[in-house]
């Protein structure tokens, strides 16, 4: 399993959001760090095929990001995203499952599993408009995991989660990282410092650091030291 990002760029009018980034991802957890406006979200959106790069290519096991098969193995939790307020939690997951190409029985089984995993079984039949922010975030995590993705892209996944949920989520990601490529972007350094295998840092659209991470080091100090150089 190999995700290859080759010299991708994206420009918005006068601002270069992502500047010729090349990376190679294999199985494991990748922590993406960077200040606001560093280009993390744009980079992730391009990996997910939501945005088209101005230049460069993205392929997974030889499949281009634009093809259906690439998206079939993808799970994405955007930073700021919406729901269908009139749908119930279960409806939403079933809809997302159909979009991801699952059959109805598969979708129902998997949706029930994930609702239990994110502790939403009790409220699965309630409309999403009645959910709290944390419940919505957990539902978002559940939809990203529906198709057992080979590539899981999580943009600020712990926003809105309470400390207990955050720990449970961290453990869940750790398990997923054994089988998939997990790219996780966050402002909360402690969310990734104990689980990330590799760290990627971005600043003003450029890749400023990428490498293995030693659990014994202080990531926050390292991060601040790197971006202030």
């Amino acid at each position, binding site marked *: 399993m190999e995700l290859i990002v080759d010299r991708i760029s994206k420009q918005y009018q006068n601002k270069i959001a992502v500047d010729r980034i090349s990376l190679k991802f294999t199985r494991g957890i990748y922590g993406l760090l960077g200040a606001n406006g560093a280009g993390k979200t744009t980079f992730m959106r391009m990996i997910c095929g939501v945005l088209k790069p101005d230049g460069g290519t993205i392929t997974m096991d030889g499949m281009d990001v634009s093809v259906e098969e690439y998206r079939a193995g993808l799970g994405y939790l955007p930073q700021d995203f919406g729901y269908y307020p009139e*749908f119930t939690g279960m409806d939403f997951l079933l809809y*997302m499952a159909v*979009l991801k*190409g699952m059959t109805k029985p598969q979708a129902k089984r998997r949706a029930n599993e994930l609702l239990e995993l994110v502790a939403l079984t009790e409220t699965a039949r309630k409309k999403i408009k009645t959910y709290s922010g944390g419940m919505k975030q957990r539902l978002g995590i559940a939809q990203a995991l529906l198709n057992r993705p080979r590539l899981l892209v999580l943009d600020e996944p712990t926003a809105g989660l309470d400390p207990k949920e955050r720990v449970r989520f961290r453990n869940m990601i750790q398990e997923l990282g054994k089988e998939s490529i997990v790219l996780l972007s966050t402002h909360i350094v402690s969310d990734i410092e104990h689980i990330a295998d590799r760290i990627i840092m971005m600043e003003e659209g450029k890749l400023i650091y990428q490498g293995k991470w030693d659990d014994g080091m202080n990531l926050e100090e390292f991060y601040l030291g790197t971006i202030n150089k």
Partner: protein
Amino acid sequence: MHRIYALYGFELKKILMRKIVWITLGVMIALNIWIPFADLSSTGYWVDSKDYTGYELMTVDRDAAEKLSGKPIDDTLLSEMQESYRNKDKYNNKESVAVYDINRSTGFESSVVSADDTESDEGSIPESKIDLNESRRYTPVFTYITKFISDHELALSVNEEELYQERQREISQCWDDQLLTTDEISYWEEKERQITTPLTYEYTEGWADLFKHICPLNYMLLLLIAMCLSGVFSTEYLRKTDQLILCSRHGKRPLYLAKLLAGVTFGIVSALLLFLASAASSLLIYGTDGFHAALQLALPLSSLPIRVGTAVLILFATFLAVSVLYSIVTMFLSEWLKNSVAVMALLAGCMIFTMMIDIPYGYRMASQLYDLLPTTLLIEWQLWDDRLVSVFGTYLTNFQAAWGIYLAVGVILVSAGSRIYGK
């Protein structure tokens, strides 16, 4: 295909779960049921020294018309009608009898059909002797004739030959007004030859009422579709759900098609419900008589040699075609503008524009194209618009041409929308 079908169910659910959809649909259906009743309940008539509601007079005329059904409109029937009207004049029974019919069926200005226009009760026959059914026995025939003979004196003296000549003269006048070419005139003359005269009288008011109401029905359909489908694509951007669906396996082309299908289904079902509500209401009031009558009984100036029922079916099919076009245009704008309010404003603006602006027949090409717009096509008088469209030597009527144009526009917009969505 089954993926699209599964997504289609969810997309339909997304449309139907909005409260605004049910409220708007309910209001529109109620309005369409009410409009034919409103015509009758909101009007009162003073006939033979008595006050009648529109509904009371309509039932009298409907009974009279049913008795006349099956009779050819020839010298015999014309003489009977004229004799009946002369007798009423003889009693100096102030004849406001035809006012109701003239207003309702012809669009001519209100006028009193009497030898002199002075109001007087002197010489009136006693109220007790007035038999409204008898006095209005030939009103349906008189009303029919005055649809194309505006001179009421002439209507009360015309014979069979003059009657059909007068109709032909009116049609020729329309041809001149519409700047028809010689070939177009030949086309319609050939069609006219297929119409058998004398026409056999049939009561067609129920179906004719549908022709009359197709215009408001069309505007309501446009508003309904604009309100309910303007958010099909734009709310995905607004709610930021687009990023979730676009990165999913079937979030691109299959979802685009599923959304389109769901929107078009909604448009067609809405059109069907509105049309059925209007038809049920009109037919409940006026009855279903006249479905097999010649179209000229309902629309005297039409040269189409078809039955009233065929014309209703053409109108219905066109209404459905228009609903598909409205749905596609609305969803295209929703995808393009990504703002449902802007889509509604644009469509409502176009509707008001076409309600207020008319291009005179003198500008033949511009006028003809303008009249093929869905908001201008479904108007009663378009059913006797004789301007044709020549396609590789074959002449198409305005309705036939409109179907072709709507299909082409629909395909172009679906393709263009697909490109925008893909980006």
